[in-house]
């Protein structure tokens, strides 16, 4: 595999790197003598962590400070310190389940829309990905082709995905034209609340399905055949085999899929933004769009409020992270057990 990869990447790309690595060896050996193994750990970590620190961590910290300030200025030094006022504003609400009673009603609309989206989208996505993986795991002719079919949209940019589907779903799009031809009444897919929500769910599933299906397919292929053989000899029914053998052994992969899908669903933005723009009304206004518009895209920017919203959203995501780590650990121990 490794050698073939080298050929694919082209000797031109790898050869200088290989040479560089060899040239680097003597000085690094010297470094190792001086700094010891601990020093080498630092050496391996530094390049990544430096870039990570400057371009990921530092902005996050600045963002945190931002959330404590107010004003239209974009540079920290000129902003007014207001402490927790932005958070207070976001959380000022009589009844959190009814955004209309909140001071920042759009924030809470976005929160509940996102929650609804996450539940529906992740459930459907996992089910579809599982079915796809099960089908791709069958004895098919031209398996590579079929895998390709489902994986293809993963490689498109989210903006393009949103754009294509908008052209298809809008009132004067191809889908309605086709329905007219079939004698059906056209549906205003992006203008009716339920359909517009369904469209954001469907299109994001369309775009990501292939990725998750492949992870699950890998899990299916790793299930030892002899388990099925033994079950078959015992006369176990296929449906029972699925629940008793396939599903439990697929669990580690399924958990990875669920957690990754959850995180991406909370962040939903590009595809939905291009597709519905958050409409109709605010029916598909999701968190990231709210933050993006308040903090950056509107004429009168309010980066402080946007930062506070993003910190709150970050809090939710950290909870999801902890869940992921917990599940991941369980998945790891299961993986070892098998």
């Amino acid at each position, binding site marked *: *595999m*490794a050698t073939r*990869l080298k050929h694919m990447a082209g000797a031109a790309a790898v050869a200088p790197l290989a040479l560089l690595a060899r040239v680097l060896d003597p000085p*690094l050996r010297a470094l*190792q003598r001086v700094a010891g193994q601990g020093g080498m750990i630092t050496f*391996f*970590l530094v390049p*990544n*962590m430096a*870039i*990570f620190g*400057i*371009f990921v961590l530092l*902005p*996050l910290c*600045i*963002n945190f400070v931002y959330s404590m300030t107010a004003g239209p200025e*974009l*540079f920290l030094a000129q902003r007014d310190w207001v402490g927790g006022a932005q958070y207070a504003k976001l959380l000022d609400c009589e009844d959190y389940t009814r955004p209309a009673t909140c001071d920042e009603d759009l924030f809470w609309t976005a929160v509940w829309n996102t929650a609804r989206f996450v539940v529906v989208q992740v459930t459907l996505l996992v089910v579809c990905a599982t*079915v*796809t993986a099960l089908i791709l795991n*069958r*004895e098919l002719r031209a398996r590579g082709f*079929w895998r*390709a*079919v*489902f*994986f*293809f949209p993963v*490689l*498109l*940019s989210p*903006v393009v995905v949103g754009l*294509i589907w908008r*052209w298809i779903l809008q009132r004067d*799009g191809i889908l309605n*034209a086709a329905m*007219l031809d079939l004698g059906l009444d056209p549906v205003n897919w992006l203008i009716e609340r339920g359909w517009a929500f369904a469209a954001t769910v469907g299109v994001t599933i*369309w775009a990501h399905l292939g990725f998750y299906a492949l*992870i699950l*397919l*890998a*899990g299916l292929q*790793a299930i030892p*055949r002899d388990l*099925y*053989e033994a079950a*078959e000899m015992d006369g176990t029914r*296929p449906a029972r085999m699925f629940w008793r053998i396939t599903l439990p052994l697929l669990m*580690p992969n399924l958990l990875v899929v669920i957690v990754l899908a959850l*995180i991406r669903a909370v962040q939903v933005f590009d595809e939905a933004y291009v597709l519905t723009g958050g409409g109709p009304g605010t029916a598909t206004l999701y968190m990231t769009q709210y933050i*993006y518009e308040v*903090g*950056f895209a509107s004429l009168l920017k309010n980066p402080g409020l946007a930062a506070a919203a*993003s910190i709150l959203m970050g809090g939710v995501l*950290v909870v*999801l*992270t902890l869940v992921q780590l917990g599940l991941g650990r369980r*998945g*790891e121990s299961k993986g070892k057990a098998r």
Partner: protein
Amino acid sequence: MSRVTAFLTRRRGGDRWHWTDVVTVLWLGAGVILMFGPAVWLVLSSLKTPAGLAEFPPTLLPYAAETVVVEGYDKPLPLFTVTREDGTEAVLAEARRVGTVAQMIDPANPDDKLRVNIAEREPVRAVGFAWENYTQPLVERNFFLYAQNSVFVTVVATIITLVTNSMAAFALSKYQFRGRSAVLILIVATLMIPLSVILVPLFSIISATGLFNTLWGVILPTVATPTGVFLLRQYMLTIPDEIIEAARMDHASEWQIYWRIVLPLTAPALAVLAIFSVVWRWNDFLWPLVVLSRQDVYTLQVGLNAYAGELNVQWHFILAMTVVTMIPVVLVFVFLQRFITAGIAGTGVK
């Protein structure tokens, strides 16, 4: 093959169709239409004229009105199928139109004039591709330069990503040290911060470091991707420590262990990261749009969006250039499909 995974792997009961077979056929059939259909539609749309794009109901193929040159008229005249009063159909050219009444002439006999209500005629059209959607932007704007910039960003970002991420992943998977879990948690936690929420702070850093309007300003914030570190680390965990211990016995340096032993064994995961990095960086839109506002550093995605104005969007150009930018991605896909699928199989799992 034995009957082992029968219920999942082939038609049940020989000649008779089991319901799972039906589901399979339906699912795969729907898959082809749903997954490829939209992309085909995009390509066809990109070949339509602006008027054709706005048309409803939309036509599947791009059409252009047929015209004919008639003696005595400077410009070619559009052709229409007209139903005469006696019920016969004729193909006539429109000389002029005033309100709802058009004056039609027979191209073969220009003096034979006929007044026709515009509701009683159909334009004659033939499939015609608006290649100017492609040629005009490529001539007018410096898309070749944009492509160079895109390639530079993609290649450099991918190389840096692979090198720095694999080094960090190596340290985080093969050494025990204090603070390891802290670093790990930090990385995983930032996995979930979408770029669009830290645009403003990130911009102030880019501008403070003088990277504004440079390609490095596009590259650097993306290369320390937590996803990459996470993915590689998970894969490296599966490499047995015994191999590394054995190498140490043979006096291999830590660098050699990383370079000669761990990296080659991580090749499938590296391939996946490389492919995804290429696709991501090639498709990146929001961030380059924030950093780049000079033509000489435009990437393709920014360049093609210069056709999005305040009050009008020149969709015909945007669609065409979108198709152009998709070509490399499709090529990557066609040639490296095996690596992607095999690689994901090995990585996302553990």
